[in-house]
């Protein structure tokens, strides 16, 4: 990671969001292998944020992180990548995440007001924050406010300031502000997002200035995400031009984790003929046994990466074996062939379309999603009118069920705590016999 940092000084201008084929073309140049491996780290790191700031926003042992915002956070209950990336980032630290995002909400808490005037919405927002009991608050607002264009900016800033004042006065939490993500061209839905993006940029700039003036950490997702446009038809990151799709969250999750505290997201290792490590990044060799027919290596990720999505496995391990005798070799996990290649290919390194820790990461992500769903039922239950609203005299007895969710949430938290620690796994490289390959 530290190497990656050093290296990226030279390559900070690399595009942040390249299609995989461009990356491999780039890597085919005759650069040193490890340099190549590390460049992967840069590519999926976040060069622009790295070059912009020196501080970081590391999450600490015992942190409780609240995600506060609008649909951007609300929809992650379905996807889970942001929390997965952050949980995996510090596998040994106990960190708890509570998502209190609410679609359509603003920093004044309008969507949380139910039957009452908007001020009550802000009171409820505070109540939700209280439930999350955060040491860290990650905030994203502004996407909807930007539709009010320049005219709405002053009141948005005032509302943001009031929100930050409240958080500061009522908690000791560290605050990170995420910018909204850019609007994207989506044919009929958003045929021309340019003017919307110009409006949005005003808000992003304001948020950045606000974060600076208030000493809050700022993550720019607006300027660091590449979107599909009418001319540049890349893989879309939104479903409708404004809300991220699964792939969008996949990209954003790592971007946030990198912004908080950058790391090499490229996992690469080169194993020598004798079973030693020549070079490695993000992964450790626990054990290696070399025999006549095979090399058995036991590997352990430093941290889990997000499971591949939609054919993009660029976060997976690139494995290289130096100086193998000529011939074809196949790599196996529990009898399953993961990759086959000539000694030359293995020398260059092969990136695995599937690696054993992908399943663990998937399990982690699924558990996080389930935990978040359970928490959703607790903090934002249906039938609010009867549980705590003006008909609580009729059905308020059922509000006793809300604390009961704690036990179920805690159970999932325990699983998350286990799942986020990378488990070692064993790979076997065997010579392919006969005319194979």
């Amino acid at each position, binding site marked *: 990671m530290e190497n990656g940092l050093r290296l990226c000084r030279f390559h900070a201008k690399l595009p942040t969001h390249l299609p995989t084929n461009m990356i491999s073309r780039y890597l085919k140049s005759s650069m040193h292998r490890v340099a190549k491996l590390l460049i992967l780290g840069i590519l999926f790191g976040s060069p622009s944020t790295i070059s912009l700031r020196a501080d970081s926003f590391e999450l600490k042992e015992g942190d409780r992180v609240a995600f506060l915002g*609008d*649909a951007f956070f*609300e*929809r992650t209950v*379905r996807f889970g990548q942001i929390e997965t990336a952050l949980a995996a980032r510090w596998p040994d630290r106990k960190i708890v995440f509570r998502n209190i995002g*609410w*679609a*359509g*909400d603003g920093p004044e808490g*309008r*969507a949380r*007001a*139910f*039957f009452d005037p908007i001020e009550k919405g802000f009171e409820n927002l505070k109540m939700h924050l209280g439930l999350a009991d955060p040491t860290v608050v990650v905030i994203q607002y502004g*996407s*909807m406010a930007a*539709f009010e264009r320049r005219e709405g900016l002053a009141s948005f800033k005032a509302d943001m300031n009031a929100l930050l004042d409240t958080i500061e006065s009522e908690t000791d939490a560290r605050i990170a502000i995420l910018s909204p993500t850019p*609007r994207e061209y*989506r044919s*009929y*839905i*958003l045929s021309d997002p340019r003017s919307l993006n110009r409006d949005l940029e005003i808000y992003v700039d304001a948020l950045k200035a606000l974060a600076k003036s208030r000493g809050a950490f700022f993550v720019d997702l607006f300027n660091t995400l590449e979107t599909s446009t009418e001319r540049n038809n890349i893989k879309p990151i939104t*479903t*409708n*031009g*404004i*809300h991220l*799709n699964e792939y969008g969250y996949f990209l954003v999750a790592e971007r946030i984790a990198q912004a908080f505290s950058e790391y090499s997201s490229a996992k690469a290792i080169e194993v020598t003929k004798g079973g030693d490590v020549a070079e490695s990044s993000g992964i450790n060799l626990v054990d290696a046994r070399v025999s006549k027919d095979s090399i058995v290596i036991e590997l352990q990720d430093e941290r889990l990466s997000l499971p591949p999505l939609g054919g993009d496995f660029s976060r997976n391990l690139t494995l290289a074996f130096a100086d193998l005798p000529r011939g074809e070799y196949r790599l196996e996990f529990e009898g399953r062939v993961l990759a086959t290649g000539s000694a030359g290919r293995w020398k260059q390194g092969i990136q695995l379309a599937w690696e054993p820790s992908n399943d663990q990461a998937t399990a982690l992500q699924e558990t996080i999603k*389930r935990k978040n*769903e*359970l928490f959703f*039922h607790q903090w*934002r*239950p*249906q*039938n*609010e*009118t*009867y549980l705590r*609203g*003006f*008909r*609580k*005299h*009729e*059905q308020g*007895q*059922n509000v006793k*069920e*809300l604390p*009961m*969710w704690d*036990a*179920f949430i805690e159970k999932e938290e325990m699983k998350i705590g286990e799942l986020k620690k990378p488990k070692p796994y064993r790979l076997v490289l065997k010579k392919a016999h006969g005319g194979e390959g």
Partner: protein
Amino acid sequence: MNILFNWVGRTVSVLRLGEEFGGPDRSSSLDRRAACPQATERRPILFRLIGDRSSLRLRPTRKQPCLIPLLALLLVSTSWGQRALTDIPDPDPEFQQSLMVPAEGFEISLFASEPMIDKPLAISFDGQGRLWVASTTTYPQIKPGEVASDKVYRLEDTDGDGVADESKVFIDNLLIPTAILATPEGIYVGNSTDLMFYEDKDDDGVADNEEVFLSGFGTEDTHHIIHTLRAGPAGRIYFNQSIYIHSYVETPRGLRELKAGGVWRLRPETLELDIFNHGLVNSWGLQFDKWGQVFQSDGAGSEGINYAFPGAAFRTNVGVDRFMDGLNPGQPKLSGLEIIQSSQFPDEWQGRLIVCDFRGNRISSFKVEDSQSGVVSLQKQDLVTSTHGAFRPIDVQLGPDGALYVADWYNPIIQHGEVDFRDERRDESRGRIWRIAAKDRPFVKVPEFKESSIKELLDLLKAPESWTRTQAKLELKARDARVVSRELQSWLATLEPENEEIDHHRLEALWLMQAIRGVDMKLVDTLLQSEDFNVRAATVRVLEENPKDNEDALEVFEWTIGDEHPRVRLETLHALRALGGSRSAKLAMKAYSESMDDTFEFGLWRTMEALEEDWLPEAKKDPSFFGEDARKLVYAIGCLNKPDALSPLVVHWEAGSVSEAATLPALELMGELGDDSVLEIVFAAAAEVDRAGRPGGPAILDALLRASEAGNRSPKIARSDIEALLGSAREAVRSRTAKLAGSWNVSSVAGRLERIAADLETGPELAEAAVEGLALMDAEAADAALKRLASDRTPSTIRLRAIAGYARSSPDSVAMLAAEGLAIAQESDDPLPLIRPYLTRAKLANQLASSLRGKRMDTEVATKALRLLGSAPVDTSELKRAIEDAAGIEPVDQALDADEMAEFIAFTQTNGNARRGEEVYRRDALLCYTCHAIGGSGGSLGPDLTSLGASAPMDYIVDSLLQPQKKIKEGYHVVSVSLKDGSVISGTLSKEDSQSITVRDASDRSLVISKSDVASQTISPVSLMPPGLTASLRKDELADMVAFLSELGKEGSYKVSSGRIVRTFRYLHDQDGDSGFADLLRHKPFGYVTSEDPMFEWRPLYTKVDGALPLDGIPALRQHGRTRMHYLRFQIDILTAGAVGLSVSGPEESVLWAGDKMVERKNDIYAFDAERGSQTITLAIQEDLPNKSKLSIEIVDIEGSSAQAQVINGK
């Protein structure tokens, strides 16, 4: 029992529930079941062995084979007590079917039931004829630790025998999915906070792609969450949300907010989302008729069918200042709605609205007909009735074969507001889809949409089946838009001009174009030439959606605003509202006339209000912006109802350019909205009007009074001017002037007001006004005058009035006097004005309480006072005690604990008698009718009880009677409004707009509160129904009443029939035998009772549930000779003029007058010609005729008459 319940799961629950039939107290149910031969015949052999009684106890569903061993477990269970509360019918689908009675000529069959589905909430057929079912076992609330696992099923009838034979679980991770719509692109599902979209690319019946389509919908009440997804005629998707929901939806075009009920309109391709209309309590029914007109039903409001259009607003809406009424006030609450357009149905059913009366276990029908710009709706016969209490028709859709499909949510318990979330009687596993078809009529051949060519699909637009046309359009929308629009042009050319339906075919083409490309203006031109106003109206509606996209739109509207048919003009108003701009506003006002019907007037108001920013600046620049006739300006400003808008009219007035016809309305508006200087002008003008002996003075003065109530006004008015009007020849003018004098603090006339108030000859209205004037004055002279009037030297009527007035102006200093007033008040006096001032602050209430110490009060007076106390917004417990002490009333604690409740329910089931109970209910002393209606007849302060028994368990009814605070029906909550002066006012919210709040208090008094006086407003958990109303009843009487209430709405004698039965009457009181009055009547001609002689005192009288009006105990009056007559009156509403018929059954002879014209009776029918509007009917019935107790009156249609008439029931 709970453990057992969970352990053995649903099988046991079936048994438990089934068992409840067996008890000896269920004999009536047993009889009904035994009388049903199908049910007995189909009984499985197993149960014949066990014996008849057991078979009823233990009837299983077909899917539960292992019953016998469990029986043993059940028998040792100990909690039988709770079971007595239930009325859980046998769940066997065959048995359920045996209790369903379809209308003549129809048959009903089971299409699907559990386990192929579980609990269906919404259904939708796709183009392959498969039925998609959104269902929930989670409702009403997910249990701690549960992961959402509600499902969408795909049902298929593969062999075409009318029964589903394949069921696939399409999605299984939903949380109470409340809506579903199948389209060729995929399936839309309303699910909690999201509108979801699912695809099934490989068509295997399992979703393979999911997307959150829109999110941010509220979930404050799980039966209000977005629902009723419908494909509109032109490619848009409509869906509803209900009263408790607050939604903030992020769209690529910005945030969309909807608070409370309303209909969303979505263009799925572009995510353009707007609010189609506002309001209704819980509208689970929405459908389009052949012409794209929208109709809605309401599952919690009781006004039957509602006519909706863009911008419409109904009761309980948030954000629109006015609302429209439903078309059938007093109807039961109605869920899913379908409009019959299917050749499978007989002709007379075409166009009929089918609605689910889920409380009353029946499916009803309505017929709507055009009436001026709007429609009228008449209830017709029921399509299905049932005595099965768990039959809950909730969604209804025409199917591909032309039959009608009904989603039966199947549940003995329907609610979670009043009944606990975890109530064990909730059914969590069953559900049915029924199929209703006309007998002996062919089914429709199901078209193959997917395999059809574009040309073939276009031809399907000619189908008489609405389902076929809708599917064809959906399929065409999924095809290549360029090819479709090209082929559409050639298809249009092939239409035969002589075809009667040609314009409808063209309209379908216009809708299709709107869905795929945009409005085809050439087609618009053609269709605007149509002779059918429905076609022209629908064409304008097409332009309403995005008028800015069409440059020629305004030109079209210039033409259509002058259309001969008001519907087309109304549609133009909607479109102009959408288009906006000052030209649109000006054009809209072209449609203004003084004879606009209500619907039309609403449309114009909505437009002028919405376009304020467009036209108001123009009118300020040019007061003649709407033309020379100032009435238009008056109307337009009246739409805004705010002082800031008044100036153009004042300019007009001062220029003297307000015409004669516009003078009165202009003065009223200026009086209401003007500042002090304008008020001076208006007052002077009012004096002028009065001097000239012209009418209108009181109305102008009322406007001035409203202005003064709304905010402090103090125009400079000379004493002599006030004196002049106090001397007016009209009492109405005098009394209003008296109040104004007080309100404007013209203290120099205090003496004059005192003399008026002290004069025994002064009429009550004026006397009260004089006191009020004094009370409003802030002057020593006024206080002194009140003090004199309140002294014990004045006669008690005047004294009481003065004390009340005095208490109003300074309650804290006159608490002793108020207490004295209460002590001298007699049964006939109204103590409420005395008490009210003391209920706004706890301190005042306590003050009055201590002043009452040692005083005696009349019991009746005390009872009236206590009723008001029940819902007071402040703590009145001391005052309550003081009043009880003063009147010697013993308070009763009526709460029952669980055992007592179980015992009482058992007692009621054994001994309760609904017939006797109805008599108890009708007792004057209980005041039930004052606040509650049955079949729309009675008061509306509390919920209508029409289907109470069919929807509420008995324990709920008992609780509601004994502890009214415990359960409060939605929409009947008390709003507490704290005013800036520190006082609090409470009542049910009857209206709220941007300027004011109107609440009705427990004495049914309406109070208008200006928003500027309001400090805060909260919904408070109290009921307006005072506790203790039933305290005077013996146990058996209470049991009878509960038995009666719990029969209400169930199939049988206590179900309100769908006929137009007159239920609210007034009878002529005999003035307690006053001989002078009797003489007066005897010496007048017979028809004199039809006059409006103020001597007549007409008192309310209500029919029994079966429609019969008991005349026992009603005084009869002697008419010429010895004949004694009962005189009755009622009103009916004539919606369309023509010959109207009244069928009078019961007594063989009666005399009937329509207005003052005596009507001849032929074959028990009185037929007469009536004009539009409300019509008073007077009836005389001889006292000694047999069968007079069976008197029942119903409106009937006269053959060949175009008249439409509705009953006016109410209080």
